[in-house]
């Protein structure tokens, strides 16, 4: 899948979870910048999984710290 398209779909999904309206860039971190707690992570991951019909296991989540890494991970999975 096209990275730009994936990016814009994920950006739309972040919106309701981005309570402080942080400007999201490639290097934005979920736990640090966006202050996601574990419940928020679960809901957010579920939203992405449903949108792209993929699984992002907790093992994979552990490798994803930034927004850019998430987009890449979704691209590589959704592209399969």
């Amino acid at each position, binding site marked *: 899948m096209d990275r730009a398209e994936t990016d814009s779909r994920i950006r739309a999904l972040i919106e309701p979870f981005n309570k402080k309206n942080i400007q999201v860039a490639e290097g934005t971190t979920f736990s640090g910048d966006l202050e996601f707690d574990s419940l928020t992570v679960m809901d957010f991951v579920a939203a992405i999984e449903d949108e792209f019909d993929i699984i992002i296991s907790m*093992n994979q989540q552990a490798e994803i710290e930034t927004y850019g890494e998430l987009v890449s991970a979704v691209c590589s999975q959704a592209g399969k």
Partner: protein
Amino acid sequence: MSEGVAEADQPIERVGGAPDLMSKFDPVIATREALLAGGVEDPFSLVMERVLSPTKAICNGRDTILLGTYNYMGMTFDPDVIAAGERALADFGSGTTGSRVLNGTYQGHRDVEDALREFYAMDHAMVFSTGYQANLGIISTLAGKGDYIVLDIDSHASIWDGCALGNAEVVPFRHNDTEAMVKRLKRIPDGAGKLVVLEGVYSMLGDVAPLREMVGAAKEEGAMVLVDEAHSMGFIGENGRGVAEDQGVLDEVDFVIGTFSKSVGTVGGFCVSNHPKFEILRLVCRPYVFTASLPPSVVATAATSIRKLMQAGDKRAALWANSKRLHAGLRELGFTLGTEEPQSAIVAVMMPDLEHGAMMWQALLHEGLYVNLARPPATPANMTLLRCSLCAEHSEEEVETILGMFERAGKAVGII
């Protein structure tokens, strides 16, 4: 507890400037300090100086009614249970000093496994040193690299740790949400092994899982199913086999995990199953192999208790009556509870925040009542809870006394 726990970061100089590995706990130390600075008794270092019965003890010097022990069936002082333990202690000694697979399987370990097979009417039973280790061992051993574990987000720590110990992909879903579970199962790549992990009763809120629906749905997706029935044994289901039995799906469950530390009234954990290859787990499950087996007195008390639980109809009725009365009484007083209806022997009282929770916990203790204070991260959605677990041996009058204590404490703290 030692003073050290209240002293945050006093780093000692290390060669090369390496950090003090203990510094990472400073936030926990700070939270604890703030709580204790408010003048509350430390909720996490209570000492029971004497235990008088399953429902009464002397705690921090006070006569106290116990309402947070998970001693659901009150078996801890059962005369037959105690006699069996004393006999085994005298005949077999104080400990086995060995692993189940070496010198640590005595007649009593076999016997308690027989008792479990009888209790659950299943082919196989494997006893671990704790329920924590049963989950750790069974989950990490069953699901290997390339397999998927799909589990409820509110699972007990021992389930999460079992996932962490193994190499499988771990995929959580929203609490008790069958649709979310099924969606995840459907997305697992073809050919991968799938283990669904559920609990009968979730111990934080005391709510029951819709197992009939969930187990069936998991099976339809080709998953194997493990259900932790730690908080249901002995009083839920026609034969006390738990929520899966109660909802008519025990036959479809591949592995049931349980513990001796609640209804059975001692310590130990187990897995029961009808899987034809089950026995091989004894050789490949590391938390079973690489630890000493339970002492002979413990397995003797467990076996006696389990067999008595098979005929404990009166106790079950008393436990349910207590649970219903406490639930209804607390609601009438205006407390917010974890479930609309009493679903188990756990009644969780929601606190507005940790500070009020700790104040309320202390006020109850001063009244002479012990409940569990549960707080994040053990609780779902960052809740602070006062968890009450009933015992079949609480008398009707005791339950009324408890309600009076809650009323006074709740008003004093300003929660009701």
